[in-house]
């Protein structure tokens, strides 16, 4: 492992925490579909993908722990709401299936670009975690892309509801592209490419929507920035639920 200064350590935490938190919250929200997915097959597939996402978050928390940050368990169970860095896109509670497909398609596509761009960081433990994550990410991206296509071509009602859902999702995209405090940290890790992912994401998603005959909705300006810990009461509820079992016996061995 190369020598990492305390400033580097802090910078990498600012960069990785939003990515890990996005994965964790996406996994948590995805798991809420258990028993609710359109069919039994998707129930299995989505549960598996949600477990994968939690696993990806854990890998990244482990990289951070190695750099002297708190352990994965502590990250999830002992962090106050304001310490979380995920975006609104992954946090919004379960609505309908079209919303979930549109939402996860947007998130997975962005996360895929972001993880590939992280390959420029060169930190060995991070690269080894990324290799594992990207292998599964390829499949996650594909899964939601297939669903997007299925709903887009699933008849007039299906298409209309997907289009409506996409517009709703686009109104929540604002802080997806934000780096909060991490913005200045990117240069320190040779990762300035990460700050210009938005046009890449837009061109990829725009091309796909065009292909499927869907309109490009308006992207709303961000109202609050999850990357700065602004998540609203919705997240307090989620965090309380996530930590409820652990809170029964905080010092216990699980």
């Amino acid at each position, binding site marked *: 492992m190369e020598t990492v200064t305390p400033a580097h350590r802090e910078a990498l935490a600012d960069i990785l925490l939003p990515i890990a938190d996005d994965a964790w919250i996406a996994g948590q929200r995805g798991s809420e*579909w258990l*028993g*609710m*997915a*359109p*069919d*039994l*097959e*998707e*129930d*299995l*597939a989505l549960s*598996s993908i949600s477990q994968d996402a939690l696993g990806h978050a854990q890998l990244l928390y482990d990289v951070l722990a190695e750099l002297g940050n708190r352990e994965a368990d502590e990250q999830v169970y002992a962090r106050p709401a304001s310490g979380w860095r995920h975006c609104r896109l992954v946090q919004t*509670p*379960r*609505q*309908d299936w079209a*919303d979930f497909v549109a939402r996860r398609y947007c998130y997975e596509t962005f996360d895929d670009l972001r993880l590939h761009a992280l390959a420029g960081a060169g930190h060995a433990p991070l690269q080894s975690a990324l290799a594992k994550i990207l292998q599964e990410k390829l*499949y996650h991206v*594909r*899964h939601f892309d*297939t669903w997007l296509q*299925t709903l887009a071509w*699933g*008849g*007039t*009602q*299906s298409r209309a*509801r997907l289009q409506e859902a996409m517009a709703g999702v686009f109104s929540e995209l604002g802080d997806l592209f934000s780096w909060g405090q991490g913005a200045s940290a990117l240069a320190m890790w040779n990762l300035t490419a990460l700050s210009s992912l938005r046009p890449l994401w837009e061109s990829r998603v725009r091309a796909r929507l065009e292909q499927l005959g869907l309109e490009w909705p308006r992207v709303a300006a961000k109202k609050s920035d999850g990357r700065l810990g602004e998540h609203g009461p919705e997240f307090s509820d989620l965090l309380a639920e996530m930590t409820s079992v652990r809170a029964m016996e905080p010092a216990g061995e699980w």
Partner: protein
Amino acid sequence: MTAKEGRKEGRKEGRKEGRKEGRKEGRKEGGSVMAIEETPVYEVFVQADALSFPTHVGSVRASSPEFALQMAREAFCRREAAHDVWVARADAITKARSDSATLPRQGTDKRYRLPGGYDNAPHWKRFKAMAMTIEEVAADMRTKPGR
């Protein structure tokens, strides 16, 4: 089935009132919404490694071959890697049971098709008696140099 009931419950529970209404109407109109019973069944075959035969492991319902592969991956290959997975629409498979003329059945005596009719045991015994071990071959070569 409880899982099915759970799913129905989930649909009723939709968070946005407007969307909930939309879904209910959609179900009634039918047309664009594919009922689970109408979704094609795909039979799934998993090939554990390059030298094994793909083995039938079960079936999934899916709206496309691509989806069938994705669902099969999750339903049957969650714990172990596979060399390959095949999916085939169940209605594309022609079965002998549907055409009884082609169904292999035990009819007249076919014992003559089995290899049991030849008594090779004495030949085999004689051959084994003649056969040498590798050490014997080596010893034989040492006693006859230059050959």
